[in-house]
């Protein structure tokens, strides 16, 4: 029987180990070399001369398509016309609170009411409970604007303490303090913003906003509430 030469085995294993270590280090170096930061050449901004100083009396809707039909139960009627309006800002800077329900929806000066800066609300008393099917609101539509933190709530409690239902809320960061909403912001157009009333029973409608993209003020040209009388 041949005698085992341990020295050779140890030498062989050590050699293999060294070779493996060398190969590994080379390989990892190669891998490291291959891992270079990917530098993407991003497009640079393009130059153009002084842009348009825009003042458009009638603005086309920016998002293009007109609103599609909205279906409501038969017998639904406009229930907010000439109904009393109150507000968190009882003495508006421009216009009067009655403009909110006077039926005039023109975008020109003299048809909107301006409330102070920060979160403000207007509230319409429908004088009786209704099953609310739709609320359409025109804040200001002679300029492309977006009103911030638009929240529409309905209730049978005039103080909005009990039984408050929020129909629309796009206050994403809860800056108005009524809870964060997930509805999208929208650009004001002559069509107004239609909010689904979902047949909620309510007598009072309260609409919040918190300034807009043009200034910190809050405006209303008109609010229309459509509902079915409660039998």
């Amino acid at each position: 029987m041949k005698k085992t030469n341990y020295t050779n085995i140890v030498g062989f294993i050590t050699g293999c180990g060294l070779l493996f270590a060398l190969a590994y280090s080379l390989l990892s170096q190669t891998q490291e070399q291959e891992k270079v930061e990917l530098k993407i050449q991003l497009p640079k901004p393009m130059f153009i001369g002084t842009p348009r100083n825009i003042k458009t009396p009638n603005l086309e809707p920016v998002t293009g398509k007109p609103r599609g039909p909205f279906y409501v139960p038969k017998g639904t009627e406009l229930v907010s016309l000439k109904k009393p309006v109150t507000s968190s800002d009882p003495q508006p800077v421009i216009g009067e609170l009655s403009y909110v329900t006077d039926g005039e929806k023109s975008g020109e000066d003299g048809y909107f009411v301006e409330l102070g800066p920060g979160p403000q609300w207007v509230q319409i008393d429908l004088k009786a409970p209704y099953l609310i099917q739709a609320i359409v609101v025109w804040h200001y539509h002679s300029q492309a604007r977006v009103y911030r933190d638009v929240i529409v709530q309905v209730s049978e409690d005039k103080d909005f303490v009990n039984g408050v239902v929020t129909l629309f809320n796009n206050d994403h960061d809860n800056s108005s303090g009524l809870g964060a909403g997930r509805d999208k912001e929208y650009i004001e157009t002559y069509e107004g913003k239609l909010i689904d009333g979902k047949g909620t029973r309510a007598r009072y409608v309260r609409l919040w906003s918190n300034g807009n993209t043009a200034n910190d003020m809050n405006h209303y040209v008109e609010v229309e509430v459509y509902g079915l009388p409660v039998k």
Partner: protein
Amino acid sequence: MRKKAFAYLFILLLAAALFVRLYRLDLRPMHHDEANQAYKFGQLLEKGQYRYDPADHHGPTLYYFSLPFAWLSGQKTYAELTEGTLRGITVFFGLLTLLVLLAAGKYLTASEKFWAAVFLALSPPLIYFSRFYIQETLFVAFGLAFIIFLWRFFQKPDYKESTWLGISAGLLYATKETSLIVFATSVLALAVVWFLSCGKNRKRSSHKSESKGSQKEVLTEIKKVALPLALAILLFLAISFVFYSSFFQHPQGFLDSFRAFSNYSHKAVEPGWHRHGFWYYFSLLFYHKGGGNSPVFSEIPFLLLALIGIILSIVRITRKNSENFRGYLAFFSLFTALVYSVIPYKTPWNMLIFYAGFVILAGVGFVYGLELIKIRQAKIILAGALLFWTGWQTYLVNFYFYSYPDNPYVYAQTSPDFLRLVARVDELSQVAEEGKNMFIRVIAPPDETWPLPWYLRKYTQVGYWTGSEQVETLEPGRIVVMSAGEAAKRSEKELEPYITQYYSLRPDVLLVLLIRQDLWESYRLRRTGGPSGIKGL
């Protein structure tokens, strides 16, 4: 006015002018044009690169004179620049305009110079554009220097005057190629004044015999003028060449500056967005009232005084030509106003060059008014009322309606609301792991992009696409800024993972900020002091 008193009052005036120009210099959001100029200057500052573009942006003095200001502020890159540094340059040239007025020397009385300087120092539109990083304030400073030194050279055509004339003409041309208008109207004004003055001379000497040696005298005069004039022209060409060639790096730039004439002439008559009627500039200055409860903006007191100054200056043109500087200034201002009003292309800052002339003439008119009034108290009340009016207007124009369209000088101005977008992006970058290296996609046409490149200058991974069709997918952008028009082209499904927020870039121009839900949730958690949050972000 005694020399010492004049010096003290003038220093006091400079201090007041400096204060009113420097106060809250970063109040107004950067205008599209300012951001464009800042970007161009950033390239020069960082890489030493500048090449004259005959299509736009005018001459290079603004950028080269900005360099020492940036160096002194210790700012070496575009990202390090601030509004204060950039607008500090135009503030400096606004003050230089007042000092240039002193060069009028004996051609205006000390009182006229003083009151003209007061009105220049406190003029609402001049202050407004002194706080605006575009060429206009430099153009007014060099323009005023040019018209004064042209007059001085005309009076005394020696080498000293021709040197100043050449330098001011060179700097004026290197600031804006459209200075050709100023060259033309000032020479025309000079010719008209000379002609009127000669007319008076002829009337006086018509009864005397004609001088036999007059032709010889004219020839001697021409010889005397020729060499100094050649020096002025040489200096003009040399300075223009140095600037337009980017300090000899691109000699072609100098020739391009002449080629730009056809471009600017085309722009002048086919102004596109900037076509305005003949009376546009005067309507801005006379009476302007925005909607709702907007106050009245008006320069009527100064326009009336300027009218008095103009009439007096023209009526008082004498046969002694050295006394006719006021008349020359009046004709220059009128001719320049006429040319700028005839050109259909109009932006409010273009009127500064002739309005500065009117303001100086208002000083002349005011001094005349003071001379007429014999009661000291009445003089004080008049001066006080005028200063109160201009102070009130300065406040409205520069510190209250600084960015709102009610202000007549606000033109295509970035809305203050835009700064909310910038702040929101900044807050989000504090939440994102990549910080300022986060990828931001901007998809908007160029006229709806600026001043974003200024406000996003500290972000390293910002890409600008001019149209939605250039971007197949919004991924991997966790923050996407789009013009409202481009956003409307994306499908609802694609926008679904994003929170959509709108911000006003300018009146009627909205930008959409898309924030991916995961980033938004991290932000909200941090804002409300959630598990790993920091309150008060």
